[in-house]
């Protein structure tokens, strides 16, 4: 039964661009859904399984995106996959430094330090010359094995592939020794340590896997959008969106991040494109030129962060285990 469901989901995901291939807007939203699902799953390996909440995952995403685009603007003939690999290396170094400072400590320090590291990365990129500073980086042209990278389909499949890899690692971790160790650390650090689990080593391992996957997604995003600046790829807001996606779906579950992304990304898109305002106008409830109509049109684009805030609060108060938590049997 489970296998059939999985095959159906996989077949739908692979075939989707054939049906909506004519509509670049829809495929763009699907790419965002896949990316957020993968980002959130990667975060979940560290936050969900090991219980170490990172509030600065944008640092790894931005590192991937910036490394790739900086290298390609320096030398256009480089293989994008090589640039992606360099991004992973830089992200891993940042992760190792963070981990080695913080994972010796217990308590709330990792969350705080992850923000501090992310801010150091963001402000450095903003203030340095070779990163393009506040203007960001624009990449004019890129090629890989003759694939047309101006179309969206390659990125759809790229994101899908990374999502599948991330979910496979999640699945593997759930039933492997490392995964059991991580869950033991999450449930009770003292008990885990007393059984001989090297806390710092396994936390660092989870952080490295999570950071590397996040960096790959950053590289893909950079190649897809071809224009990045710090507010797009290094902002605290992005880190929070990644966590929120996991929380809404269900932290520590394999499919939670996917469910969260399927709900949140289209919702944000609806708010951004002022769909709600359009619906109200079409229904004749508000006039387009009236005060409310103009207010909605001008402000709803910004309101999606406000809605994220409201959803976070409601979710923590009423649905702390996420949507998948509702369906889980009590053990």
């Amino acid at each position, binding site marked *: 039964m489970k296998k059939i469901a999985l095959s159906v989901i996989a077949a739908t995901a692979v075939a989707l661009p054939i049906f909506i291939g004519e509509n670049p807007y829809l495929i763009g939203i699907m790419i965002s859904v896949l990316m957020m699902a993968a980002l959130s799953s990667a975060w979940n390996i560290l*936050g969900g399984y090991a*219980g170490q*909440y990172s*509030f600065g995952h944008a640092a790894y995403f931005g590192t991937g995106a910036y490394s790739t685009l900086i290298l390609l603007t320096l030398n256009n003939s480089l293989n994008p996959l090589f640039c992606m690999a360099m991004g992973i290396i830089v992200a891993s170094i940042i992760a190792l430094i963070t981990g080695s*400072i*913080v994972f*010796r*400590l*217990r*308590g*709330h*320090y990792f*969350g*705080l*330090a992850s*923000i*501090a*590291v992310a*801010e*150091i990365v963001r*402000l*450095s990129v*903003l*203030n340095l010359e070779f990163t393009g500073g506040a203007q960001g980086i624009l990449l004019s042209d890129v090629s890989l094995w003759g694939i047309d990278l101006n179309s969206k389909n390659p990125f759809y499949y790229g994101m899908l592939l990374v999502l599948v890899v991330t979910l496979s690692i999640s699945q593997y971790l759930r039933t492997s020794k490392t995964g059991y160790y991580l869950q033991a650390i999450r449930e009770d650090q003292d008990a885990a340590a007393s059984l001989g689990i090297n806390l710092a080593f396994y936390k660092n391992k989870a952080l490295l896997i999570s950071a590397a996957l996040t960096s790959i997604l950053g590289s893909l995003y950079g190649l897809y959008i071809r224009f990045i600046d710090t507010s797009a790829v290094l902002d*605290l807001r992005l880190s*929070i969106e990644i*966590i*929120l996606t996991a*929380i809404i779906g269900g932290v520590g579950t394999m499919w939670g991040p996917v469910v969260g992304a399927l709900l949140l990304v289209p919702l944000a898109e609806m708010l951004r494109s002022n769909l709600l305002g359009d619906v109200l106008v079409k229904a004749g409830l508000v006039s387009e030129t009236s005060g409310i109509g103009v207010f909605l049109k001008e*402000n709803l684009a*910004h*309101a999606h*962060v*406000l809605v*994220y*805030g*409201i*959803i*976070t*609060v409601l979710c*923590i*108060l009423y649905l*702390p285990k996420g949507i998948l938590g509702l369906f889980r049997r009590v053990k």
Partner: protein
Amino acid sequence: MSFLQPLLSGILTGGVYALAGMGMSLVFGVMNISNFAHGDLMMLGMYMAFFAFTLLHIDPYVSLVLIIPTAFLFGFMVEKLFINRVIHHPHQNQILLTIGLGLIMSNTALLAFTSDPKILTTTYSSSAFNLPGGISLSVPLLISFLITGVTIAILYLFLAKSRTGMALRATSQNREAAQLMGINVAKMSAIAFGIGTALAATAGALIAPTYYIHPLAGHSFLLKAFTICVLGGLGSVVGAGVGGIIIGVVEAMSSTYWSTDWKDVIVFVLFLAVLLFRPQGLFGKKGGE
């Protein structure tokens, strides 16, 4: 330039940071919650001072008389309505709840007040107090520092002498034992959060005449407040006071001798250095980490 100039300006700004840090530290000590909405509460204080000045024509420093009780009540209500319900939840959920509340505050402010930064200009905004040796101290910062000193003295007396203050300290030391001694710990949490909010709003109002007032201003103050708390030792109110001054001086020194753009980076590097070398903070108890 004289070495004393950035040192003294840093101490003045640091005093206001200390106020914000102490608010966060008190909440952390009594409730064991990292309040990620603290910066946004400061931002609300900035706007309160701004509107008291532009709409009611009250001097920003005089308006504290209104801002402090309003902010206390606001914080008290927020604790009762939201924070109180997650007090026994995992720490991550508490952080996420305060992040959510902070997002609601900052983005409501963004919708209500737009993203145009506001400037609060008083008659004395740009006047300076000249000391011998070519050192000049900004008058608004000097007044802010004096008010900060008075506020800290009142807070100290309240925590040290009053019955409520003692109950707050007892709750901070050991929540269960305090409850067994008949202290209403739920009420203490609400009071602590109210005081924390009032301190944040006061700090916001005090720097309003010297900063750009912006809905997203809270973000950078939040991280500063955290650095101050970790530097002073999480939960130590005295430590936060000293931590605030240190951060103010470090910022002023790095602006003067290096670059304004990098001053926040230096503060965060300092934060990581504290975690690396002295994780219990300057005044924290050893083993607390």
